[in-house]
């Protein structure tokens, strides 16, 4: 039974604070238009759900998050264990 359980990881990629996020600004403005006038800031990132058949090598996972799933020039990421 346990063999059928896949290991899930969530990778959340967000634009760095120092990078202008025009998409976030557009969403914030739309939220304000719809009556949520107290919204101060919105930033739009990316959420990836990864499923593994077994535990990945942490160094390899780190490298993939850094080099492929995010661009360290403009983005930060966090990895969380999925449900």
């Amino acid at each position, binding site marked *: 039974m346990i063999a059928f359980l896949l290991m899930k990881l969530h990778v959340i990629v967000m*634009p760095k604070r*120092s*990078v*202008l*996020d*025009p*998409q976030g600004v*557009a969403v914030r403005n739309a939220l304000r238009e719809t009556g949520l006038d107290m919204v101060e800031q919105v930033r739009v990132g*990316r959420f990836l759900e990864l499923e593994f058949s077994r535990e990945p090598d942490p160094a390899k996972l780190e490298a993939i998050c850094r080099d*492929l*799933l995010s*661009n360290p*020039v*403009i983005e930060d990421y966090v990895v969380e264990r999925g449900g």
Partner: protein
Amino acid sequence: MKIAIIQFPGSNCDQDCLRAFCDGIKAPAAYVWHKEASLSGYDAVVLPGGFSYGDYLRCGAIARFSPIMKAVVTSAGDGMPVLGVCNGFQILCEAGLLPGALIRNRDLTFVCQPVYLRLENNGTPFTHLGRPGQILKMPVAHGEGAYFAEPDALTRLNEKGQVIFRYVDRNGTASAAANPNGSLENIAGICNQHRNVLGMMPHPDRAWDDLLGSSDGRLLFASLVETFAAR
């Protein structure tokens, strides 16, 4: 001398680039599929514009891992001239051959229009036939073309003369109004420290004949060919 035009799945300016060389300035160029592993027999490389891998994840993020990119990185390190236009520029940044990144345009719109560029530095294999301050007209066509780099990286680019093109108005002033996408300091094109890798968002491949609205893009292709003729 022979120029390689790399074709990624989703490239759509590969034909424009080939025509620019073969028809525009009568120089030999050929397609190289991204699955190839070698650039042997070629003297220069062009990464054309388009939407490689559908721009999935980030523009250029997946193309950067194509087999041919290992050869491009190695050849660039050996001094081979490499030109990245539009999506090609994005790929060069993702591959770490050029500093910084191209992010979503300031106004969120896809910009497709002619722009004026000021040649800031003619000390590259692609620009040596031009003169600094020269104004060139060619089109841009992109959704993610706003150049971004951290302040220290930007300072280094300026100090080392690696900014090659800036967006300007027709009088040559790098104004906010002349900046089509929100690029920092109106940057439209940069090169690496060794000056053999050039990335730019505007399309010289769409501006090599007056029939196309401008022939100013010829400068880049002619400069490259001249580089080899002089050797």
